[in-house]
């Protein structure tokens, strides 16, 4: 009997512990946003759903969204899928926000098709959806706020043609299956290369880096082992660029092979300073978050908004990376917006 009781007590302890965790974190959250269930009545609540939460890119989006939230006086709820390449989990996050009856959703879909039904469900529940970063294979949303990825890819091709002086072998390391934004970049790059440097040969364009830097690193090592006579490499996002850069470093080819990537982080900028990275097509994630939320609010408040908003791409090189406007783009003051 005593032992019996003991088991129940332990069970209770575990549950209480859990309650504790949830409670404290929940309280922290509501303190920090100054929001709780009851007060939310007047303020608009906008859910911003990124593809993931660990990349710096998404932190910039978050900061931009937060800035818009403060300017417009709306509550921003930031929630990504638990695992970065899991469509299923992102579907669930969207569903949960629909259940929660937020006023608007700003979403970067992990997959152009899988996210169609939940977005449609949101619309059926009269919740406007603004898509950002990557496109969706349906027109059930209000607005698309993103970089013109195809143009970004072309910009990268232009730079590649420049650094290779119009000849050589080039590898395109693709990001992941089913990701519309990176596919557009890759296509833009390959089309652009034909246009700017017709003599350049693309020797590989069917390998995928995968969703994490670790996977990208391994894929890069394998591809470098296979194609030893490569002159230039293009990677379509942050993690694959970093994975490839690491692989070039470990095989002693950093600096010798011209590497052009997409999106920036500290490691990549350092590599650029060292001359190991020859160009980064940089989007403006901060602006994406900012404009995404602004558009969503405009839709809700029935103000005019744009159906398609280009947030622009800039080619950063070693030469221009220190210019003031690029400095602002590369090192936005995130803390100012994220820490209240």
């Amino acid at each position, binding site marked *: 009997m005593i*032992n019996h009781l003991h088991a129940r007590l332990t069970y209770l302890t575990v549950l209480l*512990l859990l309650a504790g965790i949830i409670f404290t974190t929940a309280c922290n959250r509501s303190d920090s*946003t100054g929001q709780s269930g009851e007060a939310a009545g007047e303020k608009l609540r906008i859910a911003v759903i990124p593809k993931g939460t660990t990349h710096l890119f998404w932190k910039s989006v978050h900061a931009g969204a937060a800035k818009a939230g403060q300017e417009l006086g709306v509550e921003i709820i930031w929630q990504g899928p638990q*695992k970065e390449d899991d469509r299923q989990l992102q579907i669930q996050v969207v569903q949960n926000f629909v259940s929660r009856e937020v006023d608007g959703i700003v979403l970067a879909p992990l997959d152009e098709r*899988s996210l169609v039904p939940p977005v449609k469900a949101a619309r*059926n529940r009269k919740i406007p959806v603004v898509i950002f970063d990557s496109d969706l294979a349906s027109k059930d949303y209000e607005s698309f706020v993103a970089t013109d990825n195809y143009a970004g890819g072309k910009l990268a091709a232009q730079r590649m043609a420049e650094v290779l002086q119009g000849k050589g072998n080039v590898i395109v390391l693709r990001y992941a299956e089913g990701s519309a934004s990176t596919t557009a970049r890759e296509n833009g790059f390959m089309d652009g290369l034909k246009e700017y440097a017709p003599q350049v040969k693309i020797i590989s364009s069917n390998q995928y880096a995968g969703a994490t830097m670790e996977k990208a690193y391994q894929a890069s090592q394998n591809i470098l082992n296979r194609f030893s006579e490569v002159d230039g490499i293009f990677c379509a996002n942050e993690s694959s660029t970093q994975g490839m850069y690491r692989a070039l470093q470990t095989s002693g080819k950093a600096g010798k092979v011209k590497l052009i990537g997409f999106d920036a982080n500290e490691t990549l900028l350092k590599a650029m300073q060292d001359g190991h990275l020859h160009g980064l097509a940089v989007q403006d994630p901060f602006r994406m978050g900012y404009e995404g939320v602004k558009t969503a609010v405009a839709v809700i408040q029935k103000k005019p908004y744009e159906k398609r908003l280009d947030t622009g791409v800039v080619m950063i090189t070693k030469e221009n990376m220190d210019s003031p406007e690029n400095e602002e783009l590369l090192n936005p003051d995130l803390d100012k917006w994220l820490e209240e």
Partner: protein
Amino acid sequence: MNITGKKVLSQFGPFLGLIFVFVLFSILCPPAFTSVYNIKTILTQSVIVGIAAFGMTMIIISGGIDLSVGSQIALGTVVIATVLNMGNTGAEMGFMWPLLAALAAIAACGVCGFIIGRFISRFTIVPFIVTLGMMQIARGVAKWIAKEQTVTTPPNWLQDLMLLDPQPEWLFFGPGVWITLILFVLVTILLRYTVFGRYVFAIGSNEQTARLCGIPVKYYKTAIYTFSAFFTGIASIMQYSNLTVGDPTAANGMELDIIAAVVIGGGSLSGGEGSALGSIIGALIMAVLRNGCNMLGLPNYVQEIIIGVIIVGAVLVDRLKHRIKA
């Protein structure tokens, strides 16, 4: 009396946990948490893990484990998509082709399960290793069939299985939820009231005893893995319905959620214990947690920590239960 009391505790321990978590979130969350629509959302979100957990429950009771279910689900979605595209004439899909596609997915998973079961019983390799291998193989085959891309499919009725607001309206819950309920009744009967179920428990509790009592252990092991793979196949249909595409990278790591559901529900990894009721409750607990954390706007790491605590906590309770018995 005392014994039945204990039984009740072990059966309803997870249930109390579920109620606790639900009540906790009801207090903390905005009222939308307890709305009918949100309940529907939670139930629908636990369908995939729940159905796969039924199969896993049988395997875990028999003292085994299957690490390949996540990959099998991905393979299933790809098979469905591929078969659907074969039958795609540009016109309406009709009823038969999608049904055929669904059966093909169940068959594909069944083949995986059969191979696993045969290997385990024929060559006496531990299930962990065999299914670890199958995890890679099934994933690889899925990518191969899908040519390393998601396979897009024309609209068909399979895509409506997981809808939150189903047509016709009187269904109330999506067909996936009803299918889960039917499978739950089926598995409960199977485990409690059939010779097959009894043998599953006997093999998991003590394989040597099972042999001594004349149970053809090898035959049954193959049957268990094959049969539970059918459930994985059904789960893959639901996964497809959710994604609307065949996705070779789907359900990556989902096997751990599924195993966790079974363990939270009282399944013992050393075999001989577990129930369909416990496993579906385990799946529900995790769905409630995810949903509730989303509602509260908690960051992902909190969800991960909480689910981790729940798993270890559930096993701890399980241990204590054992100590009482001993």
